[in-house]
């Protein structure tokens, strides 16, 4: 299920025309069954971008099409004696008009916020994960079945069902929060900084979980500052800067683009920088094979063997 954004612009404070747009003329196609990372410095528009994907924010102008679900805020012009000008009234009407069936969109696109564990509120893990499906009109039995399936997927077995989510570790709480979204069986899972605050093991487990979800056919879109995650898991990476998409490529191409990186706030992952140094010193490594320390060791071993 592709997501198509056409000329999307968003201003947080539309009343102040001088306010800088958080998104500016963004056009992109996010393909079905893709694993896309969204990166860029603080305030570049990443969170604003992803909140558009399930209609939590509506564009100030522009169009978003999620597999036929259309949010159309393209500008309306009126004719005047001197030509055409933006029809403010018609635009205001568009903004006021509540999007119909927005729940349909939210079912398709599950959004996991920054620190999702802060939104947990029910007294038991199972009840918390059931909340979403129930809210979408499922029966108690259907909700519980969906919740149990989602909890199994995130690696929490039935011993967790009746525990209070508040006594779990940070990583476990985040799993509960993600299960709450997965219980809605979204076709696209969008996550805002999912690894922030997790220790090394928690990060590895969570990214392993997202890989499993991806392999079962769900598209993943994640906003992150974690370049190790981008290199290891993403197939495509969009770079946002001051609300615009300034680069659209693979992680491999991006991290080799020294001219682009020099003028940005980005830094390739440690493992990649080290591999580049080895290449500069004459080791014939294939960067395409390098994702982390283990794959770099594999690649070094391969090159050393071929020399002998």
């Amino acid at each position, binding site marked *: 299920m592709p997501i198509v954004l056409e000329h999307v612009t968003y201003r947080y404070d539309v009343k102040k025309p001088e306010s800088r747009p958080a998104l500016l003329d963004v056009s992109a196609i996010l393909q079905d069954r893709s694993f896309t990372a969204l990166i860029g*410095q603080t305030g570049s528009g990443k*969170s604003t971008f992803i909140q558009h994907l399930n209609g939590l924010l509506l564009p100030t102008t522009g169009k978003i099409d999620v597999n036929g679900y259309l949010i159309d805020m393209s500008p309306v012009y009126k004719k005047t004696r001197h030509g055409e000008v933006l029809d403010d009234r018609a635009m205001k009407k568009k903004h006021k008009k509540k999007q119909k069936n927005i729940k349909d969109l939210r079912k398709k696109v599950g959004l996991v916020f*920054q620190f999702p564990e802060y939104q947990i509120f029910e007294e038991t893990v199972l009840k918390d994960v059931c909340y979403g499906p129930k809210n979408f009109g499922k029966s108690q039995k259907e909700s519980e079945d969906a919740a149990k399936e989602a909890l199994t997927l995130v690696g929490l077995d039935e011993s967790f069902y009746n525990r209070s989510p508040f006594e779990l570790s940070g*990583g476990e709480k985040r799993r509960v929060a993600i299960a709450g979204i997965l219980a809605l069986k979204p076709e696209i899972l969008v996550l805002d900084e999912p690894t922030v605050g997790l220790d090394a093991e*928690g990060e590895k487990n969570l990214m392993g979980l997202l890989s499993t979800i991806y392999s079962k056919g769900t598209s993943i879109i994640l906003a992150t500052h974690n370049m190790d995650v981008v290199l290891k898991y993403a197939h495509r990476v969009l770079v946002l800067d001051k609300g615009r998409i300034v680069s659209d490529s693979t992680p491999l191409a991006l991290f080799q683009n020294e001219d682009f990186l020099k003028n940005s706030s980005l830094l390739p992952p440690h493992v990649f920088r080290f591999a580049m140094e*080895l290449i500069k010193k004459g080791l014939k490594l294939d960067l395409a094979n390098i994702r982390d320390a283990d794959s770099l060791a594999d690649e*070094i071993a391969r090159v*050393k063997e071929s020399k002998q």
Partner: protein
Amino acid sequence: MRNKQKTEELLKRDSRIPEDSAVFLDRLSFSYEEDSAKLLDDVSLDIKKGQVVSVIGHNGAGKSTMAKLIDGILEQTGGDLYLFGVRMTDQNALLLRKDVGMVFQNPDSQFIGATVKDDIAFGLENLSVDPKKMDGIILACAKEVGMEDFLERSPETLSGGQKQRVALAGMIARHPNIMILDEAGAMLDPKGKEQIRNIIREKKKRNPEITILNITHEIDEAYEADRVIVLNDGKIVLDGTPDDVFTNDKLLLSMSLDIPFTHKLVAALRKRGIDPGKINSEQELLEALCR
């Protein structure tokens, strides 16, 4: 006069605590309920004035709990806590907290003001700073963290990283003698993180007496400290210089923690039958592999 006397009494040093101590924990424990697990378990620690200490540990190890106890947000259920030799009690906690500034992991937990300016002002108002001087201080601190163009913005229009910068500005405006950073750069890009580290380094250069506790999951950042403390299940399991602590690869990995990149790569190479020999730095590894 009586008030002054009272304040002096409340802030009386305990002569048993070393003169150079900034934070002294004496068998400190904390649990939310009497019969629930201890999140901090009998921890004793002496952090000296001017020390930069990194605190690492897996999620739920007790790092943030320890920070909140030192900041007086939580009250210990066992043991004693001393700041600059003064034992923290219900009566003097507010006075002692003036010396402590903290930036939380989730900036939403500490955004109080309706605008960035109000938020930075909050801490200053609590310190009874002259309102005439306040605007100047707020602007200077916002400039330090690169948020001077956002002073009138409300929190919901800011990104997570921007909120973290505002929280940092609010802290440095108060000039605390003890700074606690609980993953204060977690939501920033690599260059933003470096900028935060530079601000802290600069503060430290200007006032070497500042004591810094930096809770982090990032090894490179932890390496910059004078001392690294590793917490596991509410207890201190390692305490030493970064070099001392980070040689314990197996122990760190067993506690779900990351190890330095060089150590990780050397271990992976050895598994594949490549032994680069004794390696002390990344540069040495680079040279060994290209030989």
